[in-house]
């Protein structure tokens, strides 16, 4: 009965590799997000999708490419990984887009370590 799930939980990889993180929500929400949390615990929005359409891209390098095959899924693909990409990546969802007075529900996070 997990609401927002992510796989994998941990990802360790070498610089230059390409990797993907998957996210699924079973809450019936229309909007999904990717956040990056750095070592100082600062959570920053990367992307927002509403009904499979991109609504926010927070000046994220184009090595990061989100894909939403349907409303319940938002995957994140990262090309040519760099050391600075090491962080915890959280997926989240909400019933309405931002500005709709609604809370976001977060997945358990994926800890990415780039060596």
């Amino acid at each position: 009965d997990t609401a927002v799930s992510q796989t994998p939980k941990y990802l360790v990889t070498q610089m230059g590799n390409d990797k993907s993180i998957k996210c699924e929500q079973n809450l019936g929400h229309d909007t999904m997000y990717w956040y990056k949390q750095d070592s100082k615990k600062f959570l920053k929005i990367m992307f927002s999708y509403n009904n499979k359409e991109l609504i926010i891209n927070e000046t994220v390098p184009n090595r990061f490419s989100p894909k939403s095959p349907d409303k319940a899924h938002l995957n994140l693909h990262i090309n040519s990984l760099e050391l600075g990409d090491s962080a915890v990546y959280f997926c989240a969802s909400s019933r309405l887009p931002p500005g709709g007075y609604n809370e976001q529900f977060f997945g358990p996070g994926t800890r990415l370590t780039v060596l």
Partner: protein
Amino acid sequence: EDKVVQSPLSLVVHEGDTVTLNCSYEVTNFRSLLWYKQEKKAPTFLFMLTSSGIEKKSGRLSSILDKKELFSILNITATQTGDSAVYLCAVENTDKLIFGTGTRLQVFP
């Protein structure tokens, strides 16, 4: 630039103490202010505040918003070791949720 600032950054207390966590913001097109608790994994939702002066309460936790002075406080009374976590304040505007850096609370027996 939109920003959300939390204080203190870190707090160490003993069980039974009362703590107050602060959140101030400068955000365009304000919609709501939210508090989350983050233990080891996902942030979990605590409160959403949209109106000034109306206290939201859940057990030992309570929160209030002042939209004129642009801040919110989160109070925890009779703290327990299970309250140890990072408490995140976030402001929702028309585009996104903007998070503060969090307050790390440690409660010792």
